């Protein structure tokens, strides 16, 4: 049992190019939690995620992982980029792209094929190991990226609007797949999206951010628990009274007035 939470933001503020992107914001993410960050474009949700991943340093406050300041990227933290097309190496096959994570982690060459096969099976790409990314659909490319992150065996997975560029059908099936993966691995996820239904459907907790924070209207607009039983179902969960209540409660924070 670790005493400090897996991730903790303590009054973290971020300025970029002289503009306040994120006003001082505090929250915690416990091990095994699925937390979605939602907000209108320009509210700093991706910036917050990048700070949590160690890609950028906060201008004020402290971003802590296991109670220690986050100074840079770590192998314990995987990052799924929205633009899968630019996050995969086009010159490597699906297996080669997964291998990159194992090479970086120093996994001996003879152990790699088994581990690659295992994660590819987990995301349902077992039959596509020798294909190049350009031969796959968008949804499959995003699965490759998720598989690469799983191969890293992280404790925390950051996902930056991972399904934003996919069609609704593909997005929904990937939502269910990620939910299933997270349940079976006990992974902790910080997930950024601008899709309110996606956020509620996936999360244990939703953090809503607002754009253009001011003194009396800070970045953190709302934080709500989602107490809907798992496994969830695309039809039943989205008709659940609690789902509808949360949807109504959070709707206003996304620029709808």
């Amino acid at each position, binding site marked *: 049992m670790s005493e400090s939470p897996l991730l903790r933001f303590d009054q973290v503020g971020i300025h970029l190019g002289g503009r306040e992107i994120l006003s001082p914001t505090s929250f915690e993410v416990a091990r095994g939690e699925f937390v979605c960050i939602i907000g209108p474009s320009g509210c700093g949700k991706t910036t917050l995620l990048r700070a949590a991943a160690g890609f950028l340093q906060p201008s004020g406050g402290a971003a802590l992982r296991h109670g220690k300041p986050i100074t840079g*990227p770590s192998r314990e933290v995987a990052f799924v980029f929205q633009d899968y097309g630019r996050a995969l*190496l086009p*010159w*490597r*096959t699906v297996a080669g792209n997964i291998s990159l994570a194992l090479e*970086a982690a120093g996994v001996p060459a003879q152990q790699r094929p088994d581990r690659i096969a295992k994660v590819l099976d987990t995301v349902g790409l077992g039959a596509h190991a020798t294909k190049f*990314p350009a031969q796959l659909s968008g949804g499959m490319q995003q699965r490759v990226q998720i598989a690469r992150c799983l191969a890293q065996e992280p404790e925390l997975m950051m996902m930056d609007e991972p399904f934003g560029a996919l069609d609704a059908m593909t997005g929904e099936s990937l939502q269910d797949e990620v939910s299933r993966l997270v349940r079976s691995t006990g992974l902790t996820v910080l997930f950024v999206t601008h899709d309110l239904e996606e956020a509620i459907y996936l999360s244990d907790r939703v953090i809503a951010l607002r754009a253009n924070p001011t003194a009396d209207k800070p970045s953190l607009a709302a934080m709500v628990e989602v107490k809907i039983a798992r496994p969830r179902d695309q039809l039943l969960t989205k008709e659940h009274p609690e789902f509808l209540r949360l949807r109504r409660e959070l709707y206003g924070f996304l620029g709808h007035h």
Partner: protein
Amino acid sequence: MRTWPTLLRPWVFPLLLLALLEAAARWLVPGSDALAPPSQALQAFGKALSASGDESVLQATAFTLSSAALGLLLGAALGVTLGLVLGLSRRAAAMGFLSIEVLRPVPSVALIPLAMLVFGFGYRMEISVVAFATFWPLLILTQAAARQVEPQLLEVAHALGLSAWARTTQIVLPAMVPRLFIALRLGVSFALVVAVTVEIAANPSGMGYAMMIAQQSLAPDLMLAWLAWIGLVGFAINALTLRLQRAIAHRMGEPHTGVAP
């Protein structure tokens, strides 16, 4: 389906042009010192094929091509290495900027007198001028290629915790390959142009020199034969590099487009 008429289509225009040239040389300006009918040029070329020494087609072609190839190899090795350093390090780019901008505009053929003084006639002088000429475009294009590596790929490398060495060999260099090939193809055509130019201007060897000899001995048929041969050799080399480029692009997972650049 490719049928015979479509396969023949690209040949229509060149054949028409040859026929026109043949007619013009035979009936408009018969006995000209500048023009000869293609049929006579072909005969002259046949004779040159069996000739020996400076007029031997094989020997002259081998000289020009090996000088161009060695010069390009030298220019590319230096240009790509330095371009990589300048492309990856802002500090190195700032240090090198002035020297590059002062030296780069010097026309490579302006170096022929200096190269002659230093190396005399022969291989070394031609190689050095070709190397100088190809060094600059390869340097500039490699530098640009290194800077244009998809930044998100570098973030992926960062997130995965790749070492600096692995980042360079596994991400930066492979990501540069398509652009490096464009630079290489430019270098190949540069190398051939400069090699022939050096031979026309100074070096008494190779295809350029053979063409000059034909011109000076008032043999327009042989001169035109050399001109056509140089064009053919250039075409063949360009086609070869294009095939190599496609084969490598295919191996690197690029979908086959079938469109010639």
